[in-house]
């Protein structure tokens, strides 16, 4: 078995992983990044919109500051975030954007003079100032008081990731791509590296490291319908949870986006509705005004997703071989508008559906989009529970998003958190040495080797891995989707526990040799079901509605009892996660108040005098 040794092992080579890697490499440490795919294919590349940072360069961003950004972020989180972390993030975001500019990101820049823009389908005019010419500009995003989202056309994630990877190449960061981490190596106190399977040859390898970083992105692929890349199956979270000592934070906080296209769940932007697109049911009836007479399609993401789901539950969805869906109608906006303002949507419809959105309706449904939960870390990015284990990006619950993250804050988080956590990793590497007990390492590797052998030889059963995975999908979509209630969540938890049992009886139908994809799924699935159980059990226990977590039987936000973060750990062999709770924030710069959208009653926290 090949063994590699390095100072910093980054599991995940997207924006967060590479940003941390760069910080350590620049300080002279050896860094190896592991990635399921070539680094530049990471899901970071798919982000189109942009990154929030209060630069205040553009006309509509005038007067912006980290304070205003902080307030937006805390409100957006529905007071579920760690305010100290949100503050760190907002203060550092402008530095991170400028640094990216120096490294080569072709940010769109301020062009002085008059120009027009749309808001709510109406045309407005603005004038950019001469003295700001050539500085980084910004666009509007939902939930922000100012135009604050820095962008490069509709390819922000792509350009930032390519620039980041260029920087990593320059600094000699080693990337091993097409590999998958199967378990962390730890002694219950210290994290020492990982056991990894090569996805080119199927062979197992051992990586030993003084610091291990989990930056594997979201876990959207535990849901059948997700906008996430197919690699976002929670691998990093699974290996953290499997230690039994590292908790995952707020796993029940899962964001759904209203308009994923059917069948492939690729996102079409909120801009469609912003510019006047409507949602229709199977009778081509516009239903949103029935539920939300004022805002209709322009209510917030979570609100629109909820009504769409409700409407389909009434039997008014359009049946299809891929399940029920609704229609998005942007035909009336005209070819000219689609070709210029909604170019990306026009292309997605033509490339992936083979339809012309100026003539045809677009099939859409609410789709899992973002995981606010993840490996719980402190403000330095250090995971709870194990020394030498850090986490950053969507994989982490750092926790600046609380229960509903704002658009443009997720892509920015990868880089800003990477910068801050990277500096802490460097400090840690300077101060800490470890020793590697060979017996322990051998046991961890042997354990994975044994799992592989048993799967190939069908030693534990003949369950079909895809059938079992579909059972997880069904349970989760039904019970822990957009709407949640006690009865369905209980059923969901119970079904998932049965599914979890079945994952122990999977046997391969193929021979499992080489880079076998059936084996890869079989190795990952039990962990995916455990993540699903953390979501469902966390949601069942949380008897309130906050941000994206909407309980039909507890519609009010309950600050009195639930101003807390869920911490889920999994004891080896246990049937369910153990849930503990901690206060959401140690620091309260802004006391809990109205979010300003989405409505709902609030049960206030008891005065603490």
């Amino acid at each position, binding site marked *: 078995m090949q063994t590699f040794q390095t100072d910093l092992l980054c599991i995940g080579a997207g924006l967060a992983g590479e940003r941390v890697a760069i910080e350590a490499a620049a300080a002279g440490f050896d860094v190896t990044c592991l990635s399921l*795919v*070539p680094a*530049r*294919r*990471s*899901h970071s*590349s*798919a982000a189109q919109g942009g990154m929030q940072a209060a630069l205040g360069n553009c006309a509509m961003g005038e007067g912006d500051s980290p304070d205003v950004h902080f307030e937006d972020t805390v409100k957006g989180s529905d007071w579920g975030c760690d305010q100290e972390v949100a503050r760190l993030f907002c203060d550092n975001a402008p530095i991170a*954007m*400028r640094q990216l*500019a*120096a*490294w*080569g990101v*072709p*940010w*769109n*820049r*301020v062009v002085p003079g008059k120009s027009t823009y749309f808001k709510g389908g109406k045309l407005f005019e603005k004038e950019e100032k001469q003295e700001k010419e*050539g*500085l*980084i500009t910004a666009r509007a995003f939902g939930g922000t008081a100012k135009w604050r989202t820095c962008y*490069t056309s509709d*390819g922000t994630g*792509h*350009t930032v990731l*390519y620039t980041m*990877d*260029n*920087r990593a*190449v320059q600094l000699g960061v080693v*990337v091993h*791509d*097409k590999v998958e981490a199967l378990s962390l190596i730890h002694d219950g106190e210290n994290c020492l590296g990982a056991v990894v399977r090569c*996805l*080119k040859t199927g062979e197992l390898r051992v990586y030993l490291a003084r610091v291990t970083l989990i930056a594997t992105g979201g876990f959207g692929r535990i849901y059948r319908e997700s906008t996430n*890349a*197919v*690699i976002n199956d929670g691998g990093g979270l699974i290996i953290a949870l499997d230690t039994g000592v590292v908790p995952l934070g707020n796993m029940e906080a899962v964001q759904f986006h209203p308009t994923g296209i*059917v*069948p*492939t769940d*690729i996102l079409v932007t909120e801009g469609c509705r912003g510019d006047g697109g409507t949602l229709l049911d199977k009778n081509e009836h516009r239903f949103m005004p029935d539920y939300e007479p004022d805002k209709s399609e322009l209510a917030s993401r979570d609100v629109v997703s909820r009504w769409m789901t409700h409407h389909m539950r009434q039997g008014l969805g359009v049946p*299809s*071989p*891929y399940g029920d869906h609704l229609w998005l109608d942007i035909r009336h906006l005209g070819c000219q508008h689609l070709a210029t303002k909604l170019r990306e949507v026009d292309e*997605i419809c033509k490339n*992936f559906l*083979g339809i012309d959105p100026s003539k045809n309706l677009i*099939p859409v449904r609410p789709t899992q989009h973002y995981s606010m939960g993840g490996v719980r870390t402190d403000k330095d990015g250090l995971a709870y529970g194990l020394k030498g284990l850090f986490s950053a990006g969507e994989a982490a619950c750092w926790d600046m998003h609380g229960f509903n993250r704002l658009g443009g804050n997720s892509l920015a988080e990868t880089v800003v958190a990477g910068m801050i956590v990277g500096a802490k990793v460097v400090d840690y590497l300077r101060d800490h040495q470890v020793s590697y007990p060979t017996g322990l390492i051998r046991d961890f590797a042997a354990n994975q080797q044994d799992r592989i052998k048993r799967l190939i030889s069908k030693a534990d059963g003949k369950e079909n*891995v*895809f059938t079992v995975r579909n059972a997880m999908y069904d349970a989760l979509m039904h019970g822990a989707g957009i709407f949640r209630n006690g009865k369905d969540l209980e059923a969901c938890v119970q079904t998932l526990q049965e599914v979890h049992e079945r994952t122990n009886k999977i046997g391969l*139908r*193929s021979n*499992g*040799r*080489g*880079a076998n*994809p*059936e084996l890869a799924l079989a190795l990952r699935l039990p962990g995916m079901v455990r993540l699903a159980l953390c979501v469902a059990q966390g949601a069942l226990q949380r008897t309130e509605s906050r941000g994206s977590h909407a309980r039909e039987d507890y519609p009010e936000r309950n600050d009195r009892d639930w101003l807390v973060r869920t911490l889920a750990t999994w004891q080896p062999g246990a049937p369910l996660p153990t849930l503990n709770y901690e206060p959401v924030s140690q620091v309260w710069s802004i006391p809990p108040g109205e979010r300003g959208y989405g409505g709902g009653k609030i049960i206030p926290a008891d005065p603490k005098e």
Partner: protein
Amino acid sequence: MARNLTFSIFRYNPQDPVSVPHTDTFVLDETNHMTLFIALNRIREEQDPGLQFDFCCRAGICGACAMVVNGRPGLACHTKTKDLPDAITLMPLPFFTLVGDLSVDTGTWFRNMAQRVRSWVHTDKEFDPKALEERMDNAVAEEIYELERCIECGCCVAACGTAIMRPDFLGAAGLNRLARFVLDPRDKRTEQDYFDIVGNDQGIFGCMGLLACEDVCPKHLPLQDQLGMLRWKMGWAGIMNLLPWKRK
């Protein structure tokens, strides 16, 4: 009216001593809006769980799923079955090392390319976290973005006559990458520096001008224009070098 589609798919697992290269046939009923992403996943789940292929974003953004579809390199995720005949032949991209079936290793080649063209902004300036960002003309930023849209799918080199004959050819993707930095005012490399990288048969002089790279590029990048621009610039730098009073 639903069609039955017949897929002929290349099969070979280099890690399996009993595997030999061959073609397997799978039949699938066509559904609305079916893409090769949907079709291949259904084949894997319903008929052959060992079938190897790569998808990542499945939205035309990451470049993972390039393969040869009925003789032409392209992205499987946005290839719709309704644009294809009933008989569909799928082969892995040539040129790259085969991982198995339809999966190839593009990562190693592209990482190596990035190192060869020294794919980063070369500058002496230290980043100052307290200073404003350096200004840039928006039109220049947009021009750079147009070239930076490459997704490293590998279609261009897989379709390239030169690349098939000389594996050390930088290919359209490599030349386009360098052109991106030539355009970038932040990069302080001289024309001679660039010439040292691409002024040879592995670079701009290797291209035979067959134009396949641009024909198959799923992002419609102006690959031949970049090659032409580089040749012109490098040629000019070469002439300057011949003049003793201009030589550096």
